[in-house]
């Protein structure tokens, strides 16, 4: 079986991450319950006429995919695999409110066409004229991890050599309102610096696009090797530590070998217990890294964790803003990622230097 490498990374989030020469050198402190992506200048990447027809999620996805291809030095890939939890939410809201407001009359097809979950994957294929394998996963907080698993299977068996994978989700105004009334979004404004310790229900919502080229051909510029990814639809809080340790064992590693653990804490007092289970026990002496206070929670927030892991392994540094504890770890070889949302769809991902 071939090994799988991350050959390029790109990220559009509520931090200025689209400039990949930086690694969170400046951190934007957010105050609101809903935080929006810092957008690149789209016309540098997408013709304005085309950009006007695209909702934000599509634009973010298309640009992030271009940045990832550019960094990998590729004009074509063998497959495109995207993940999205909510799909093209703004177009869905627009088409649906149009149906209701106008009693099913005077509708135009554009927002319906673009509301399809695989719009971003299809758009990228169209633009690259990529006729290869093209899948879109829509499984909550494991939408992106499904793309990673799928790509890994193909690369290991050498069915493909370069695969573009990514996760994208956008905020929609009405859906935000709905998530507020069911308290999945916090009732109170919360500062990025306090979110992870907020002790209240719900979280801060965000949006973004994170894309990667994964390959079975290592380059000098490769970031990391993807050792393993595992997903669980359910997991009880009592079993999290045991499952994490088993996962390491399957990969012939112990807790001591893990130089950093990247966690998906989002400051929701009801569900952060899953992460605390790891940080207070098995991984209490491991460098802990958290990021959702900086970019908000969304179903495809977790690939930003992969972006961070890739950066850490390549630069051998961790920005202060990401550190949950301070151990002074100086070199990073193995990084474990763990994520879940509201107690469902858990994932463990293992990366190492290459």
């Amino acid at each position, binding site marked *: 079986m071939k090994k799988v490498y991350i050959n390029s990374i790109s990220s559009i989030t509520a931090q200025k991450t689209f400039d990949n020469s930086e690694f969170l050198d400046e951190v934007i402190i957010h105050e609101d319950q809903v935080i929006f992506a810092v957008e690149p200048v789209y016309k540098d990447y997408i013709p304005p006429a085309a950009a006007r027809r695209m909702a934000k999620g599509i634009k973010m996805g298309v640009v992030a995919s271009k940045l990832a291809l550019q960094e990998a030095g590729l004009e074509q890939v063998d497959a*495109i695999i995207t993940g999205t*939890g*909510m*799909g093209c939410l703004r177009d*869905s809201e627009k*088409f*649906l409110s149009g*149906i*209701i407001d106008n009693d*099913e*009359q005077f*509708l*135009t*097809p554009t927002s*319906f*066409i*673009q*509301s*399809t*979950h*695989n*719009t971003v*994957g*299809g*758009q990228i*294929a*169209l633009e*690259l004229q*990529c*006729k*290869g*394998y*093209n*899948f*879109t*996963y*829509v*499984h*909550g907080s*494991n*939408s992106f991890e499904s793309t990673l*698993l*799928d790509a890994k*299977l193909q690369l290991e*068996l050498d069915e493909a050599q370069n695969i573009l994978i990514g996760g994208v989700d956008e905020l929609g105004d*009405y859906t935000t*309102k*709905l*998530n507020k*009334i*069911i308290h*999945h979004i916090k009732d109170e404004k919360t500062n990025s610096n306090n979110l992870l310790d907020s002790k209240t229900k719900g979280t801060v919502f965000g949006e973004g696009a994170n894309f990667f080229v994964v390959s079975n051909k290592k380059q000098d510029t490769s970031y990391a090797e993807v050792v393993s990814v595992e*997903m*669980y*639809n*359910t*997991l009880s809080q009592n*079993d999290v530590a045991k*499952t994490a340790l088993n996962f390491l064992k399957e990969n012939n590693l112990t807790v001591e070998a893990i130089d950093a653990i990247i966690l998906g804490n989002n400051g929701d007092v009801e569900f952060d217990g899953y992460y605390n289970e790891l940080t207070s026990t098995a991984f209490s002496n491991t460098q802990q890294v958290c990021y959702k206070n900086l970019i908000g929670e969304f179903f495809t927030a977790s690939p930003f964790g992969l972006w961070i892991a890739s950066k850490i392994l390549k630069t051998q540094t961790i920005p202060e803003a990401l550190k949950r504890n301070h151990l002074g770890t100086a070199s990073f070889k193995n990084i474990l990622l763990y994520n879940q949302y509201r107690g469902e*769809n858990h994932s463990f991902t293992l990366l190492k230097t290459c």
Partner: protein
Amino acid sequence: MSKGIAITGMGIISAIGNNVAENFQSLMEGKKGISKISKIETIHKDDIMVGEVAYTNSELVDLLGLSTENNYSRTGLLGAIAAKEAVANAGIKDMKAYKTGLISATSVGGMDMTEKYFYDYLENDTNRRYIESHHAGDSTQKIAEQLGIDNSLITTISTACSSAANAIMLGARLIKAGQLDRVIVGGADCMSKFTINGFKTLMILSDTYNTPFDENRKGLNLGEAAAFLVLESEAIVKAENKTVLGYVKGYGNANDAFHQTASSDHGDGATLAMEKALEVAGFTAKDIDYINAHGTATGNNDLSEGRAIIRVFGDSPPEFSSTKAYTGHTLAAAGAIEAIYSVLALQNNVIFPNLNFKTQMKEFNITPQLEAKEKRIQSVMSNSFGFGGNCSTVIFSKEQ
């Protein structure tokens, strides 16, 4: 050539029956499930025909024994019914005996409830429990719960109308790679105002019975359905001496890279998908005995698909038919519905007729199979194509 993956169970609920036996009977009797819409209030009710599942939501809730406080979308309800039949059919007693996963497919997800309560959610809290069942992955989580699949690899695919074919493909690959010993694969989509109006704006809904591959075809009928298949590793089949219904022998996915909603004139993506599937199966075109076509009865699909079939099979392809005239186009579920019809064709050595056909298309000379026909069938090819240029082909075979 790689070995096929065993299919050991099937379950289905569609406009032509609430289980596999009823669907087979309707297919053999040429009984369509297309009618005027009865379960959704829409201003288009006199202009469209649809394929609805007979059960109401509350009947489905009763069948599943759910509490009235459940928050299942109709997609989840239909999916759970079909998946349970598949698991029972496979004779699975202990879900935990093997490493079992679930791969489902949907395009609508929980849109049926969202469109019903969209503004009402803000006004009162009676139905707010459905807010979190809107996203596409939710129906899969519910189906997993109904099947007793926990701590497991489960995911959801949404590539529009090829979704369930892709779920079957991924399931077969996961077993081949040793990631899972057993996987339940398929898809579910319920009828919704959202899709009715979406396809209406695209002007591809027929106002009468859909007529696949007919010169005068007027568009598709939307359908709702769910179907699941159980795939098991060779080791389980041997250890438990399982009855194998057929094998997933080949599969291919390609992108047409032509247009967000339309297929290319000569079916480039479709051709690639069929060729890839043949290659994975280690087959040539002459190994296929029957093609269950995507055949949505839109002007664009049937022309593009027909041309692609000719590109792969030449001017004399094996018998082909679209079963969409029976069920309507069941979107993300279609690939699984037609996978089951393909396996039924294998098991019973019969080709299901392409209903409602009257006039030969003028662009080519191939004609779908118009009557039920008995024929020794070794392998069946099933096509599913979707928005975003997504093209998928799965090949089912009697032999591993």
